[in-house]
């Protein structure tokens, strides 16, 4: 580690005088020549911390020293050494790549004579040399971030602050972005990388882990992960349903946290335990249990106190449908064209009752288009989408009555109270009289909404908001549940809780369709379809996709590595 570039000394920042602080007594240091991760879920205070370091906000308490200067009084001196790339980088979408570079060169007063060399170096570094004439708005998410980075690097900064640079970037571009950042750190630049993805934390030299503004941990990620060393195990080849096994495992006192990972279950234990002990504790005599190295997320969950121990109230609900192999969602050669552009091309798959099916793929690959056609938000140019045998084209209202939908940002009416939201969705799904009362009562008791009934939805804590959105989506007890990026940016604990409900619903025969770009979440699915350039390029169990992309002599790939391999192979085949 190099010398500290920035010192954060017991900094507190409040936006609402009476409310909880956005940043609460954070102390940390940022080293030169290293990547420091500011890690935490949405709303943890990452952006605030970055803006404090950039001198865009003044702390209420404490002080920051950035590049040797006070972040408030002497910020003008520090500014030439700081580059800040906000979440939506200020690219001018109607200017071309080169025009954007010129603009930032002007802003950073880079001399006209030096520009040629600087631009060449930056374009080469970011692989954008062949796109200089393209307008920034027409670039892909990954290319936009690279251009943003190039612009931020214009004045040769010492401290580079990147606010969630990997959001909206597909795994391939994300990998490239990391390669570039590592190179910059090698050149001695201090990089601050904020992220909600916990796997990225492991790649940083040091992390500042935030939860609701409070510092949870600051230091090398290895030391944090080390706390749960020997306490992480994987269950393979278990008898019976994996969701069943997970549910029962979570009830065991020895278990702190558990998630589904493809065909396996990943467990975090309270205390280190031998495999045999664990096997008998969980009464899984035949299962294969193996200790595995811990991940950052395991340690974070442990520090948060573990996953939800209670069974989801949905477990007790009656079972949907009798025939387990019945096909509930069918995509039949779904094609959608927008002018000349084919967003979805002959997409075909079918999903059985009680399956959790994931659509994954980079942004703009056709994932959302497919999803929207399946839930009736978009009319296919050709092909059919059927829900329980009902075609959207023929019986839209009937088909829609069968499905529940939960959009990315919990689409609730924020001004309405919890009760009013529930009543609205009950009415929208045609529930009235006794059925309505019964559905509302059930929703209220399921999630214990009673104390919040008269509270405005917008003011609920995140966890409750998510529960309310889920309740509204399933008030009418749908056959099929569509989830659009259900837990992106949500803290791992809230995500665990959400998935216990989804798992419980799947176990009783609700078919679930998920889109996600978050590959850890894709591991929770039974089957996934990888969509790329408007086509399904791979479909199967998460483990199958991993096996398929496994190369000789290599370790078992993660789903992200599998994703990259599959996309590359597809590109190579297409090129021939």
């Amino acid at each position, binding site marked *: 580690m190099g010398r500290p570039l920035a010192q954060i000394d017991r900094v507190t920042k409040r936006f609402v005088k009476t409310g909880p602080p956005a940043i609460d007594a954070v102390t940390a240091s940022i080293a030169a020549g290293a990547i420091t991760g500011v890690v935490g879920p949405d709303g943890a205070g990452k952006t605030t911390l970055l803006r404090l370091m950039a001198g865009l906000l003044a702390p209420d308490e404490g002080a920051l020293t950035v590049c040797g200067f006070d972040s408030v009084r002497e910020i003008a001196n520090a500014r030439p050494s700081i580059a800040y790339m906000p979440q939506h980088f200020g690219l001018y979408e109607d200017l071309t790549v080169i025009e954007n570079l010129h603009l930032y060169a002007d802003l950073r007063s880079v001399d006209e004579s030096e520009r040629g060399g600087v631009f060449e170096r930056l374009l080469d570094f970011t692989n954008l040399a062949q796109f200089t004439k393209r307008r920034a708005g027409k670039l892909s998410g990954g290319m936009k971030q690279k251009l943003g980075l190039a612009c931020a690097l214009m004045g040769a900064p010492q401290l580079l602050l990147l606010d969630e640079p990997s959001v909206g970037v597909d795994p391939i571009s994300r990998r490239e972005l990391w390669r570039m950042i590592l190179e910059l750190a090698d050149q001695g630049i201090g990089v601050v990388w904020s992220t909600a993805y916990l796997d990225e934390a492991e790649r940083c030299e040091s992390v500042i882990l935030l939860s609701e503004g409070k510092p949870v941990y600051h230091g090398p990620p290895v030391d944090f992960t080390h706390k749960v060393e020997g306490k992480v195990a994987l269950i393979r080849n278990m008898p019976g349903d994996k969701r069943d096994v997970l549910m029962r495992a979570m009830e065991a006192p020895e278990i702190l946290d558990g998630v589904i990972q493809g065909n396996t279950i990943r467990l975090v234990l309270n205390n280190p335990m031998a495999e045999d002990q664990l096997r008998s504790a969980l009464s899984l005599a035949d299962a294969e249990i193996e200790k595995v190295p811990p991940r950052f997320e395991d340690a974070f969950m442990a520090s948060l106190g573990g996953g939800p121990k209670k069974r989801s109230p949905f477990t007790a609900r009656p079972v949907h449908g009798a025939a387990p192999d019945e096909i509930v969602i069918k995509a039949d050669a779904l094609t959608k064209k927008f002018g000349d552009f084919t967003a979805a091309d002959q997409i075909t798959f079918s999903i059985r009752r009680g399956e959790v099916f994931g659509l994954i793929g980079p942004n703009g690959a056709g994932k959302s288009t497919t999803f929207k056609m399946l839930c009736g*938000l*978009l009319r296919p140019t050709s092909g059919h989408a059927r829900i329980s045998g009902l075609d959207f084209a023929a019986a*839209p209202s*009937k088909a*829609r009555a069968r499905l529940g*939908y939960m959009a990315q940002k919990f*689409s609730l009416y924020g001004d309405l109270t919890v009760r009013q939201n529930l009543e*609205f969705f009950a*009415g929208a799904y045609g529930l009235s009289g006794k059925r309505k009362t019964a559905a509302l009562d059930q929703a209220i008791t399921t999630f214990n909404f009673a104390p919040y009934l008269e509270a405005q939805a917008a003011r609920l804590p995140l966890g409750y908001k998510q529960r309310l959105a889920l309740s509204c989506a399933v008030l009418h007890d749908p056959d099929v549940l569509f989830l659009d990026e259900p837990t992106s940016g949500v803290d791992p604990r809230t995500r665990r809780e959400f998935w216990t409900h989804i798992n419980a619903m799947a176990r009783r025969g609700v078919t679930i369709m998920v889109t996600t770009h978050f590959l850890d979440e894709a591991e929770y699915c039974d089957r996934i379809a990888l969509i790329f350039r408007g086509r399904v390029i791979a479909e199967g169990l998460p483990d199958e996709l991993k096996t398929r992309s496994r190369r000789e002599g290599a370790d078992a790939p993660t789903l992200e590595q599998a994703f990259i391999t599959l996309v590359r192979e597809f590109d190579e085949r297409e090129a021939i």
Partner: protein
Amino acid sequence: MWLRIRTLIVKELLASALDAKTRWLVLYSPPLLLLIYAFAITQEVKNIPVAVYNEDAGTVSRDLIARFDGSPTFSEILYFDSWKGAAAAIDSRQAAMAIRLDSAFSRSIAAGKPAKVQLILDGRRSNTAQILEGYAARIVADFNKELAGDDIRPPTVIVARAWFNPNFEPLWSATPALFAVLTMVVGFMVSALTIARERELGTFEQLLVSPIRPFEIMIGKAVPAVLIALASAVAMLALGSLVLQVPLRGSIILLFAAMIIFLTSIVGIGLFISTLASNQQQAVIGLFFYMMPAVLISGYASPVENMPVWLQWLAESDPLMHFIVICKGVFLKNVPASVIFEHTWPMALIAVFTLSAAAWLFRKRLT
């Protein structure tokens, strides 16, 4: 179906009532605007200072100027001893009118010859200037009549009586049209923002995946918008008759009946714009794009009869034009129902057209 529509209407009304911004926009700001605009218009033609440059030394000229001084229209007489000074007063908007009497004024009158009074008016304020000219002409005519005395047979005298607004009370003539425009603005704001707002919040897709049909959404959006705008209209009416004391001589029932049709046509346009827009900002821009010409050709600022024929035809398709006529009629005149009907059916036609267009576009945007 009715259950779903009712659910939508209840939600929409609740959301508007609970949202502080909407509440302010719809219920408090229109009456306030009515008040401000109404008084702003009043200020235009009262309390105007006049510049006087009198080269004449006789008493007759002083008598004439005294008459100006006594009139309530002119707040102040500014005397200048050079023409330059008077001109500068108009230039700097200190005065809207200047009166010049030449040195021969008293002498000419004494000799029984015609004498001249020069009026200089500020053409930049053409409306005010016209009204001032009228006032000045009346003062001079009265003055003439008295000078002539009994020895000459008085010329034919025109006795003007302004019906419906006997005192030419500007508040009376301005308020009905203003009321119509503000009602339209509220109807637009409520309807044009609604779909765009849901699109922004992400709740729109949630609606679309529910069994609610597109036309049910349309009705569920249109009805609350009309109701909210009506509530705002009631507030403005109360203010108009209680505070501004503008008479309301016609049938309130007919006024409301016409207003419901008017608002339906406005809400249709608002929903059309809202469907087109992908966020609230775009919706507001779209709204102003429509509203500016709609107000200009409605007869609000200048009479429709003075416009070229093709523009008059276009004005026929402007619901505001019809509603202004109805408002003026009901407020000041107690017009017969037949006149109201004559202007209501075109609005009904426009309403049918705009609502179907909005519904059509709505369906089209879904695919």
